């Protein structure tokens, strides 16, 4: 049976990708300004490391990688959902302005409540994701309202999204102008995509949301399949289209918001990962979502490793590396779409 072969393929691809992610994780643990040999990494992981190694590995590098895995998976799932409901392969939280909305909220939050971009208070760590979510939600509501014309036209949605994106971009720039040079730089790096809250508190602050939302998105796979047939067919098949679309849209927006809170404005990943997943697995979301998530994790982890180490000790922000890796793919997609 075809179904079984597909399930077997899913298991196979997932296993390979998980192995690759673990491998990459182990390699990147070795890399960095402070060199730690593989043996010492192993010793530290089983609890026999020196205090210095323990600090570098377990308190600095590992939380950063866990965040990369979460953000990569989150952006991929968010992009998959947006692509399904807009029936547009180019939809992605970064391109249609949802990330910019979240970014605006984050910069506003830090600038008004913290006064500086350099550190986060304990309360800030918990509040920040919520603010990012609200910003993402505002952007999504704006896009939805502006693009609504007796339903959502996929091309209109993307065009309006691009407009909303530049609108929020401009608003962020206005705030940046008022910052001191140091904060300005920080904000600029963060907006291009930077995993910044690299400690376990930050992981704990966003992990519950991901544990809740990503499985929910996968649970909604069938709804996404039906919605991607278009409104008329979806209604004919007994789907409450507006309600279901709103539900999955909220999930996509929330996930994107939390990703921005942790990783800044990483673009393209939400576009490329689902696309590769669709190429491998076909159009069913039961298969796309898990594969896209793990591919997203892999790409972000890889990009972060490159960004951290390529020009070490200078760091390239991860968003830029993702863009450099993904932009050619994006252009290829644009050329293929008429």
């Amino acid at each position, binding site marked *: 049976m*075809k*179904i079984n072969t597909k399930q077997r393929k899913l298991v196979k691809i997932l296993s390979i990708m998980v192995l690759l992610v673990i491998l990459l994780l182990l390699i990147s643990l070795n890399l960095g300004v402070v060199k730690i040999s593989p043996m010492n990494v192993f010793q530290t992981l089983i609890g026999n490391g020196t205090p210095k190694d323990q600090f570098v590995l377990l308190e600095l590098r590992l939380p950063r990688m866990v965040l990369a895995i979460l953000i990569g998976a989150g952006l991929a799932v968010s992009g998959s959902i947006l692509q399904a409901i807009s029936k547009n392969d180019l939809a992605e939280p970064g391109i249609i302005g949802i990330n910019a909305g979240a970014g605006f909220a984050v910069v506003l939050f830090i600038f008004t409540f913290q006064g500086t971009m350099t550190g986060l208070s304990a309360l800030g760590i918990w509040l920040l994701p919520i603010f990012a979510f609200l910003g993402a939600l505002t952007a999504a509501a704006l896009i939805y309202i502006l693009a609504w014309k*007796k339903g959502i036209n996929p091309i209109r949605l993307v065009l309006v999204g691009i407009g909303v994106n530049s609108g929020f971009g401009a608003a962020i720039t206005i705030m940046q102008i008022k910052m001191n040079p140091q904060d300005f730089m920080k904000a600029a790096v963060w907006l291009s995509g930077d995993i910044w809250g690299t400690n376990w508190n930050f992981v704990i602050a966003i992990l519950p949301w991901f544990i809740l939302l990503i499985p929910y998105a996968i*649970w909604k*796979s*069938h709804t996404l*399949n*039906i919605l*991607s*047939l*278009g*409104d*008329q*067919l979806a*209604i*004919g*098949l*007994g*789907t*409450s289209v507006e309600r279901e679309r709103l539900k999955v849209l909220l999930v996509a927006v929330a996930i994107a918001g939390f990703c921005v809170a942790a990783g800044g404005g990483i673009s393209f990943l939400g576009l490329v990962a689902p696309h590769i997943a*669709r190429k491998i697995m*076909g*159009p*069913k979301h*039961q298969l796309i979502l898990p594969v896209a998530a793990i591919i997203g994790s892999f790409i972000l982890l890889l990009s972060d490793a490159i960004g951290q180490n390529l020009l070490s000790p200078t760091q390239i922000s991860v968003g830029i590396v993702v863009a450099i890796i993904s932009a050619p793919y994006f252009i290829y997609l644009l050329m293929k779409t008429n």
Partner: protein
Amino acid sequence: MDILSTEHLKIGYEEKIIVHDLNIQIQSGKITTIIGPNGCGKSTLLKTLARIHKAKEGFVYLEGEQIHKIPTKKIAQRMAVLPQSPEAPSGLTIFDLASYGRSPHQKGFARLTEKDKEVINWALDVTGLTELKNQEVDTLSGGQRQRAWIAMAIAQETNLLLLDEPTTYLDMAHQLEVLQLLKKLNEEEGRTIVMVIHDLNHAARFSDHMIAMKSGKLIKEGTAEEVMTEEVLKEVFQIDAVVVKDPRTNKPACLSYELLKNQEKKELILAK
């Protein structure tokens, strides 16, 4: 009882009213076709019957119940809808597409039960697609593709099937193939079929009941013999047609037609 009926139905988009005060009855177990010129509101009517479009006034009744009071999923267990030129996501297999027809009977993650698989395989068998079931929908010919969509619709296991121009963009042989399939479903399983169709001869040949519309109004309804007359065609399509009896099917057929001259058009308007 009528399986589907309307009462004082008024349909439109925003300010524009397309259908005025329409009362029609669709009989169970029959093939009903709706004919009329472009823009007469036949597709809009079908969408309204299918609860895809909301009526401005009046009611649609599904087996006597007001349709907008029935949960949409429950409707989908009783009525399947195939819109005009539907599009499948690229890469979707025929089997997967047909499996979506089980949607109204499923919950949550939509794992297929043995019963679901049985129905899907039956739907593929009836539509002659069993051999092709692992092929992707985008690789099919127009006729096969339309059959795949019909397979999805009948996998819904509904008594009632609504189709909007199921033969558009198909060549002559494939048009007939699709219509014969629908006829078979009607005769062998007693499914009620309502469709909008452009080809008058096909409409006359395959329907038990015809509804002729013009400018949102019902002009004539009845058997093919009652509706496919030179008079009705003149009024509905403004054509001067020669209607004969098809020697093979014994149904009325439009042999040839001319456009009405302006003079005749005026007379037609004055006569009303």
